């Protein structure tokens, strides 16, 4: 295969190619470091023409391509493929244009998420999706994963906040999808590309929608003695006609971890806390804040704090935003899950997770986007203890299966990647998986783009043995069992 690298060097400057094993190590995994693989080589193109040339050569030589942004993904979506090329878009890091009148930003895919809002700030505009990794993660990766964040309850996911992409197809052709108008002719390919995990093409430019910054906001923090009561108050707030900008929940284990780490003044004896942010015009925020406070108290909150000013609001948030590193201090390793469930099941699912954790003799810490039912159970384990990692993965799989059972999904915002590929067999049946493969083939008939991710083969599902017995029908009954 080094023959391929030699050919590549005739097309692309040597300085842009990494094939030395020591240097390749930096690219062997994304933020899900349990899954690692060295690629054949890494290429860091600097312009669209180079990406096209790379894709053309890979297509001709049947070499798989995995695109990578900042590598902050949590599902192994950017894990390299052996004998494949890793295409880093890190050098596509320019904000091409911010148009304040049109309220759009045209950016290259390697631009970090937070940089967009920073560039738009002088116009009182912002880019709404704000994944917790926003200081590091890139827009290209956000589009590939359809990233959310704490404010997507009100402002939507990446798919709701982008207008167009420029995409290089597997054959190296440049196509423009979407437009700066609010819709475009034909199929909604923009929606199809968003969240497609690098399986359909390589994004080289994105046009983002910018929103005007809310005039003011207020943050509340409520403590509960019962997890169920906290869950019920989430439903109560939504039922009252209020859509908060953010509505987050943490359980006791998480509150304690965060308090030890940050000393944010969280109530450490509470079974759960809710953090609720309301934004809008001043009159609206004041009135909704009073309503939310009343709902929280009626639902049984033992304490409700309303941030007196911006600084205090930021302290309320700081704990939530540092939950992952805080948990990182109490366990040598943790495994972050990402299921979504209907809000009404929050209380019962949390209890089921705790029961399962006991069965598996593992700790679980819960911190999540309660407003949209997006759970992030963090399973604590120690990789140096034999069998713990496997137990953690198995427990994670069980949790996702509960999410599907109660009418939810195995991934709310982290993507399937390699991590949740087995659980895809639980959520989808044979025909649905085949339909996904047919879509993939429409874009990538040779299956060269990020192979082995996101959509499992039927054989994999048969081997996984995910007995998704739906209405008494055995899945993949047509496949031989070994």
């Amino acid at each position, binding site marked *: 295969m080094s023959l391929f690298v030699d050919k590549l060097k005739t097309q692309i400057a040597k300085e842009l190619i990494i094939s030395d094993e020591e240097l390749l190590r930096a690219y062997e995994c994304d933020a899900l470091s349990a899954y690692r693989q060295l690629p054949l080589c890494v290429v860091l193109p600097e312009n669209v023409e180079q990406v096209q040339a790379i894709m053309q050569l890979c297509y001709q030589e049947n070499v798989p391509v995995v695109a990578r942004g900042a590598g902050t993904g949590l599902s192994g979506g950017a894990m390299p493929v052996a004998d494949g090329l890793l295409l880093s878009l890190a050098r596509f890091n320019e904000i091409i244009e911010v*148009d*304040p*009148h049109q309220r759009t930003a045209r950016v290259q895919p390697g631009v970090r998420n937070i940089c967009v809002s920073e560039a738009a700030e002088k*116009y009182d*505009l912002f880019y709404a999706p704000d994944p917790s990794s926003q200081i590091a993660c890139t827009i290209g990766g956000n589009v590939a994963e*359809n990233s959310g964040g704490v404010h997507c309850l009100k402002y*939507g996911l990446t798919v*709701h906040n982008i207008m167009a992409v420029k995409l290089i197809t597997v054959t190296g052709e440049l196509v*423009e999808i979407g*437009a*700066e*108008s*609010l*819709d475009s*002719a*034909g*199929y*909604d*390919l923009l929606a*199809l590309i968003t*969240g497609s995990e690098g399986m359909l093409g390589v994004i080289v430019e994105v046009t983002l929608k910018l929103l*005007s*910054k809310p*005039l003011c906001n207020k943050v509340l923090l409520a403590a509960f003695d019962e997890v169920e009561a906290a869950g019920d108050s989430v*439903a*109560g707030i*939504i039922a009252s*006609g209020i*859509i908060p900008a953010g509505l987050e929940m943490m359980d006791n284990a998480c509150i304690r971890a965060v308090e030890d780490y940050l000393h944010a003044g969280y109530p450490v004896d509470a079974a759960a806390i809710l953090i609720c942010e309301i934004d*809008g*015009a*001043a*009159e*609206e925020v004041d*009135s*909704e804040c009073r309503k939310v406070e009343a709902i929280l108290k009626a639902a049984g909150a033992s304490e409700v704090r309303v941030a007196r000013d911006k600084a205090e609001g930021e302290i309320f948030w700081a704990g939530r935003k540092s939950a992952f590193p805080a948990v990182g201090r109490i366990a040598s390793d943790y495994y972050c899950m990402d299921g*979504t469930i*209907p*809000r009404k099941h929050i209380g019962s699912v949390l209890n089921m997770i705790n029961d399962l954790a006991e069965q598996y003799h593992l700790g679980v810490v819960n911190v999540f*986007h309660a407003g*949209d*039912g*997006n759970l992030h159970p963090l399973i604590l384990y120690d990789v140096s203890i034999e069998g713990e990692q496997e137990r953690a993965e198995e427990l994670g799989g069980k949790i996702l299966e509960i999410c599907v059972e109660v*009418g*939810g*999904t195995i*991934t*709310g*915002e982290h993507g*399937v990647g390699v991590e949740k590929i087995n659980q*895809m067999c639980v959520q*989808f049946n044979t*025909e*649905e998986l085949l*339909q996904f493969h*047919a*879509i993939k*083939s*429409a874009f990538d008939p040779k299956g060269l783009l990020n192979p082995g991710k996101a*959509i499992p083969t039927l054989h994999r599902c048969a081997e996984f043995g995910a007995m998704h017995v739906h209405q008494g029908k055995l899945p993949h009954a047509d496949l031989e069992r070994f």
Partner: protein
Amino acid sequence: MTGELVQQYQQHIQDAYVAETPLCIQGGGSKAFYGRKIKGEILDVSANAGVISYEPTELVITVRAGTTISEINEVLAKEKQMLAFEPPCFATNATAGGMVACGLSGPRRPYVGAVRDFVLGLKCLNGKAEILNFGGQVMKNVAGYDVSRLMTGAMGTLGVLLEVSLKVLPEPEYELTLKGESDLATAIQLMNKWAGQSVPVSATSFHDGNIYIRLSGHKSAVLAAASQFPLSEYPDGENYWQSLREHKDNYFADDFSSDSRNLWRLSVPSTTEEINLQGQWLIEWGGAQRWLITSEPLEQIRNVAGKAGGHATLFRGGDRDGEIFQPLSTGIEHLHVALKNAFDPKRILNRGRLYKKF
């Protein structure tokens, strides 16, 4: 009973698949005028109706595709919720399936999103008569490709919709419409300026020398915002926006069947300046949706819309056997054909309704 209906549809598609008979999917027929005229056996799916589940605290409603939009609106209104994208019906029998398949949205679109932004999941039959479920009933869901949104606006060419789950939103507490005199260029400027400010705008339009703006939200916030505009209150706002959405306004009075004048919809970047085409203009969506009644030649309209960075649809009138929608670039067309084949390999579902080729 609905199970039997679905089986009937499935059988119909299976037979059509074997015989390669083109099928023409029909719901309420309210948007039969929209898109290209096609031939085929009628697959009437309007009987598959009814609300399957609705839980106001989840902000989600799941309905069978034949459920009328008016029934959905009624059910939601009882809980003070709504389809925030304000879908046009054009007739009382308009269904949820047609609403999703046509992908049309109303006055609130630029401020809260389009029908595609509110589709959370769906159940459908593909061109091989397979029953498939995509998406779900939760807001955040990235498992598998986003087929639900891909099918929105696909005009039934990728599948027959059986059920859809839609995100709903609370109705605003208070609404107010303002009106004032303006010229077209100033109106476009103003609409874009307002959209970039933190005011609760929920609809904008310009025609006949007047600019209209609707504010929605908390009463005190709406009143505070209204006082900033140099416009006066327009008391008949609710009817005005409804007649605009439903094309009942006098502007749309012609049926465009006889003379050479047609109704065009130009979707362009909102800041596009005055477009140099002769005819009567009506502007909506903060400048992003522009209606034009004109007898200007098709090529010229398409050309101008394309150059502005948008596209033009021959909405009513004209040659319904010709191309109704803006032609696609070669690369994009190639992907469309490949996707059509992936869902409907024998091309039996609404063949040619969107584009002649597929």
